């Protein structure tokens, strides 16, 4: 108790109310922690007092970051919109695979506070929803004083690399393009924080016209920064009739096995087996119209 009484806080908390104020403040304090839901930061520190850096910018009241806007072609989600609110928007607006992925994050109470921006800005992890973001061609808006840029997610958070945020730059919006998919699947295997060595998330999207695959994408993400996606396998599948013939399947599985063999230093044998099985399951779900 005595130790607790002596405790002196070393953090300065700032609470800007609009984007201009936030960007100006962050340009002066580029090492500050941008804080909103805080679910990941606090979950990583299961102790009585949270360790915070010297400067914390709480963006909870920045109105621009809490908006959802919809156009004919895409959905723009503010980086500080809670995941629970995105789910409330409904499945007729949010793509089904994304809806499933977001529903699988934490508990309802955690989803009420966790945000998409926070989910994307964890530097050393790609989290369970990354595979879906990647396949949906999500773009992110990054802003700093005097500049704004939209970049695709695979450039912002390239596999096996830390996220691409410049000094004083803040992730402000996430753009989800609308596209029609005949099949959207999402699976999460094991819990990413409890069992990181076995954890995998899988997303598969496909378009089938007159029993022919016209577009197909699939990706697996681990609890680190490794993401498995093979454009070669995807291209190989486009133009094939569904259900894919067993002989053709064997060729495709060989291609996938070759890719996985190259990632043996980053994937456990168990994860490799899981990717092979779930890919098989995904192809098996492609059926004639």
């Amino acid at each position, binding site marked *: 108790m005595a130790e607790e009484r002596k405790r002196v*806080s070393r*953090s300065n908390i700032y609470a800007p109310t609009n984007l201009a104020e936030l960007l100006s403040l962050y340009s002066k304090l580029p090492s500050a922690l941008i804080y909103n839901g805080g679910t990941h930061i606090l979950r990583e*520190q299961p102790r*009585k007092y*949270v360790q*915070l850096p010297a400067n914390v910018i709480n963006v*909870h009241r920045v109105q621009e970051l809490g908006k959802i806007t919809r156009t004919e072609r895409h959905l723009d989600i503010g980086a500080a919109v809670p995941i629970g609110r995105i789910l409330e928007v409904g499945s007729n607006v949010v793509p089904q695979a994304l809806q499933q992925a977001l529903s699988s994050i934490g508990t309802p*109470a955690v989803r*009420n*506070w966790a945000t998409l921006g926070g989910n994307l800005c964890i530097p050393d992890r790609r989290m369970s929803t990354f595979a879906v973001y990647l396949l949906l061609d999500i773009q992110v808006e990054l802003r700093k004083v005097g500049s704004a840029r939209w970049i695709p997610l695979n450039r912002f958070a390239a596999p096996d690399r830390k996220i691409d945020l410049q000094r004083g730059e803040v992730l402000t919006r996430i753009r989800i393009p609308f596209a029609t998919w005949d099949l959207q699947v999402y699976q999460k295997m094991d819990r990413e924080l409890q069992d990181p060595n076995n954890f995998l998330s899988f997303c598969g999207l496909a378009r089938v016209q007159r029993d022919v695959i016209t577009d197909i994408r699939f990706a697996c993400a681990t609890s680190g920064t490794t993401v498995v996606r093979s454009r070669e396998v995807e291209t190989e599948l486009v133009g094939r009739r569904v259900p894919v013939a067993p002989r053709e399947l064997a060729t495709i599985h060989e291609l996938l096995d070759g890719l996985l063999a190259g990632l043996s230093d980053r994937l456990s044998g168990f994860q490799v087996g899981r990717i092979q099985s779930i890919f098989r399951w995904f192809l098996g779900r492609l059926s004639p119209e």
Partner: protein
Amino acid sequence: MNINFSLNGKNVSVDVEPEKRMVDVLRENFQLTRTKAGCYAGACGVCSVLAGGRLACSCLMPAFTARGAEIVTIEGYSRSREYADILKAFLEAEYYPCEYCSAGRILAIEALLTEHPDPSESEILTGMSGITCQCANYTSLVKAVEIAAFARKMRRRGRRT
């Protein structure tokens, strides 16, 4: 750091370190001890409170995030008619949660019924999935939530159940 917020309908002010978790602020600074401290990782749900009407794990809220917020704990909620409905539903469904998780469960039911006034079984199970205490069975929990939902609906229609 001085933090002003609304707690159970009253405006309060407290001088705490911004790094202190809300669950400890509630328990130590306000003696609201029916909100329990559990895992400090948002996994067990026993520290649940309503913040701005939304269910929140108070262990995942550093004190500074409460500034200007409206926080309702089980002590504040227990003054409402809806609380009485939920307790009655527990008895009727023979659902007896332990003292450790009951506050979290009741507030999770409140949040669930606010969002889904007539919840399906799967919505109930999803809504209650944040409280991981294994003290009571889920069949009677589902029944209890359905009874509480019905009681609330009847109350809103101005009838007696």
